[in-house]
């Protein structure tokens, strides 16, 4: 039942996105322009720590921009209509899944342009890609929930940023640590950090699943 609802809601999101291509194009362009601006200011980056930090900061801001709109687009009437058709769990899970795919595309593009302009220092690509995959999923689930909260409170971008930054720090620190390991190409993978990252993802999704139904009732 819920899986079927999720399927249809994701299709709905995709259709809306396709009808409104400039929004998707805008966010992709945002990543490319940010990377280009960084390239013009930094030229080539050779220190792994700076490379890593800049990469994640660009991705962080791009993700917030991409996901901030996920509840803004929904008008009151549309939300009301959706709530009579689907369960809140299906709504939040479908948004999380859809946003994860969006962020995966975004982070892939970010990595590509970043490599092209600023250079590539990664020595252990598989670990970096796993980190990026788990990171995109974590970012998307956390930001989707925060954007749902922000949408109830006037919906401005500042609020979205101040609500999400402090609770994103645990996630971001684990991600930066793991991707630093990937850049340095350490012999052994730090399984503990990977486990913590998966645990964080699980907790965020579980909390969203439990708490979202209290947000949608108006």
């Amino acid at each position, binding site marked *: 039942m819920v899986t079927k609802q999720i399927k249809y809601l994701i299709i709905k999101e995709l259709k809306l996105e396709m009808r409104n291509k400039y929004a998707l194009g805008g966010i992709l362009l945002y990543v490319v322009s940010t990377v280009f601006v960084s390239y013009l200011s930094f030229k080539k980056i050779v220190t792994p720590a700076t490379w890593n930090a800049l990469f994640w900061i660009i991705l962080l801001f791009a993700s917030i921009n991409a996901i901030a709109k996920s509840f803004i687009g929904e008008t009151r009437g549309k939300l009301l209509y959706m709530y009579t058709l689907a369960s809140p769990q299906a709504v939040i899970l479908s948004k999380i899944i859809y946003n994860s795919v969006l962020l995966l595309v975004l982070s892939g593009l970010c990595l590509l342009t970043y490599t092209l302009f600023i250079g590539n220092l990664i020595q252990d690509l598989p670990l970096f890609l796993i980190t990026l995959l788990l990171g995109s999923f974590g970012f998307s689930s956390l930001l989707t929930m925060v954007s749902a*909260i922000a949408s*109830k*409170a006037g919906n401005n971008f500042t*609020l979205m940023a101040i*609500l999400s930054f*402090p*609770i994103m720090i645990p996630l971001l620190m684990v991600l930066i640590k793991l991707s630093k390991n990937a850049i340095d190409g350490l012999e052994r993978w730090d399984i503990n950090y990977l486990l913590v990252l998966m645990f964080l993802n699980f907790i965020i999704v579980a909390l969203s699943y439990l708490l979202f139904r*209290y*947000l949608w*009732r108006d």
Partner: protein
Amino acid sequence: MKKNWWKIIAIVFVFYTLIAGFLIPVPAQPILHETIRNLYFHVPMWFSMMTILFVSVWHSIKHLGNSDIQSDIIATQAANTGMMVGLLGLVTGSLWAKYTWGAWWVADIKLNGAAITMLIYLAYFVLRGSIDEEQKRARIAAVYNIFSFVMLIVFLIILPRMSDSLHPGNGGNPGFSKYDLDSNMRMVFYPAVIGWILFIVWIFTLKVRLEKLKRKTLFDE
């Protein structure tokens, strides 16, 4: 009187901490010297903050269950008191750090945790401020409170275990139990923790009463 026995314990223990904490001899250590007495003030602040923030989250969960505005008042005032105690913890810690580590602020996992706690609860109050409707504000703030508290716990409990800290008792630095051979410090530290926690809880109950009175007078007008 029967209901207020714990307030008497709070006063006695806090005064005991203030007097004994400064008078009872402490182990003489290089670098630390007398600053070791900060243990009686700085550490109980963090214990009290976590206690009071837990109270806040507990009442946020209760509010989601029963939509009672009383729970919301308690949750807000607890978060408010928690912020105040956290600020005191930061100030006492910062002063201590200046004389032992040589800087007001250092890059340390526990300091980052403290800063994030402050940011989260500041954001919580900004969120409250941006919603006008009372019931809606209470519910959405409760959701954010629960969500961010869990992330905070993860940050404060899991991550420090995985990296070193400059704090005593972490990363190869000896904790105070190593120096405290004649248990002099324990005799002050444990009452200090209990005293400060009770004292802060008292402040919190006063804040709740004040807030309820404010709303009552508003309602009567």
